[in-house]
């Protein structure tokens, strides 16, 4: 069976409520905020109602893992990233290496916020914008288009 991973399936349906970001922060950090979320929802300036949604795609060969100079960032079999905080030197190269902006940054501790592919954000999305999908290699192009 192919692994399941987080996918933006209907960006245009996003209402900008940030419920997904709150859910991620609550679930993994017990934090009542959006700032600990591993995904990012942003408004495009001057374009009301148009939201940018950046999620970790659980790439087959993640650029962020390859770029990490200390081996602090690694990927599990299910596609989830994991961080060894003690090895992390807060260089932020991992975040910069992700071209789609799918890796979030924790301003408080100066560490990346890896996505664990748990689906909490999907559970709390009221408008079916996000889904956990099984990715086939041939679907990769289509799903890349959906991430924006």
């Amino acid at each position, binding site marked *: 069976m192919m692994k399941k991973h987080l996918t933006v399936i209907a960006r245009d349906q996003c209402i900008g409520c940030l419920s997904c970001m709150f859910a991620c922060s609550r679930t993994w950090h017990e934090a009542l*905020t959006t700032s600990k979320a591993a995904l990012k929802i942003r408004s495009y300036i001057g374009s009301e109602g148009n939201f940018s949604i950046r999620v970790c795609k659980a790439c087959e060969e993640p650029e962020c893992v390859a770029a990490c100079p200390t081996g602090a960032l690694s990927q599990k079999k299910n596609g989830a990233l994991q961080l060894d905080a003690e090895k992390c030197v807060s260089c932020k190269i991992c975040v910069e290496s992700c071209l789609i902006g799918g890796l979030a940054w924790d301003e408080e501790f100066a560490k990346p916020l890896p996505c664990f592919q748990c689906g909490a954000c999907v559970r709390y999305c009221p408008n079916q914008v996000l889904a956990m999908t099984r990715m086939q290699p041939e679907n990769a192009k289509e799903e890349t288009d959906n991430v924006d």
Partner: protein
Amino acid sequence: MWTKILEIDLTHKSFRILEEQELFHQAMGGTALATHLLERYADPTGDPLGPDNPVILAIGPFSNILPIATKTTALFKSPHTGELGESHAGGRLAMAIYNAGFGALVIRGASSDPVVLDIDENQVVFHSARALWGQSASATERILRARDWAQSGKKSILRIGPAGERLSTYACATVDTQRHFGRLGLGAVLGSKKVKALVIGGNKYQKISDKKRFKSLYDSIYEAVVSSGVMHKYHDLGTAGNILKLNQNLGLPTRNFNQPWFEGADKISGEAFGDRYLSQQIACAHCQCGCIHLATLREQFHEEHGFKTFQVSYDFELIYALGSNLSIDSPDDILRLLHKVEKEGWDAMSLGVTLAWATEAFLSGLLDTTQTNGIILHFGDADTYLKVLDQMARQTTDFYRDLEKGAAFCAARYGGRDFAITFGGNEGAGYMTGENTFTDWLMGPRHSHLDGAGYAIDLECLTSDFSLEEQVKKLVAETRFRMLLNSLVICLFARSVYLEEVILEGLNLLWRPCSSADLEIFNQETLQRKYAFKMKCGWQPNLIEVPEKLSRVITSTGKVDPESIKKRAALYWQEVGL
């Protein structure tokens, strides 16, 4: 919950952070907390547009933490009514104030030059806003959104349009994407202080203390919002769905409250907007409902293929104020008017009622073209109303300057008091349902349809039999309960989600131990504090005035009897218990 207050002194360009644990423990947040702070900082006899009038912004113990606790409360002395000014707005402001680590902001004094307040967790930077002065509310937001200032995390932008700069007494203050502190002139108070905008953000947060209990509470609210159906109508058609309902119940104000039904209601209904103009719904931060309805209007500006497209938000009150009450039955025209209103930063309701008064005054001969600069006012003519808005924005004559001060001010100067639809100085909302509504607007703390939802009681009376005394008791009970809702501060659209048992569980988890009896005392004390402030400003419960015209028209519940309203007002005051 946060227990810090950020106090900003514009006169000296300074600030300080106050730790107020005891006050938050007593006053919870939102409207109750802001009322305490208004008592502390405001001079009830002072000039609302003077430096001593504070602007207080407060969030509550559920803000940013539970779904749909999305509102921020603003309290000030109103330049429109001369007494209690209170208005609530959504957007991302409550989240941003929370993220900055504050439970409330107090803005005092006045700047000598235009400023933008740039606020984060630790500091306030006073940026010169000379270049922004004169910019529309919409442009100001776009410009500031692109600035990379001190805030980390998500930021919120509160700003005024040119109407606030001109001190229009019903200028609003706009938050993020077309959310507003709409009523009672916060925009003018900020304008008098030369505050063009406030940008706030931060990264502070709290940890969940009892994960299992919190999850149970959160999920029960979330499911009620998303799956129970109780909030579906707000997402689907939105409040605009009330156009046809009120029209069918003879409650939709038309042509300056001449009649309670509009022959063009079908054309401007929520269904008509939803089917042909709605481009999407969006939400305030942490609201999974998404009730903000954005319409898209495409206009041709060149005879070949020159088109422009703009988005503007709409809801019931806006369609009533610039639609049926001005006899405009074209959604295109309503959206064009709203687009202009959005840029200038007026309260659409007060503006619409003032335009309706002006039209009736013109038609009855109280005004002529010497005052209107040659413009002939008549109902249903959107192009002319757009010209009027342009004249107001350019302040071409004394008359157009006066229009920016509202219907009561204009009626005192030009006549037509009997058809100036104002209550305690504030223009009426979109309900012509009967005596409960008018009593609500006359006696409610902020003269608003949101005080006690009198319209709902009127409509309930169509199918149920309540004595006059029972109706008044219901009205005051609702007004009193809303002290709590507005202290939390939840969006009132979620009032059927936030039932008392839900609120109590939330407060016990996030504020302090309290019981149902404690809340009753809290609500009553908060209500009485508001009236005490109003009375210090000069408001008197026995000096109420119903626009005479309303005794000559039909409403959902029949004709309105001024004597009956006086009786209701007296009973209302007894219930308040001051």
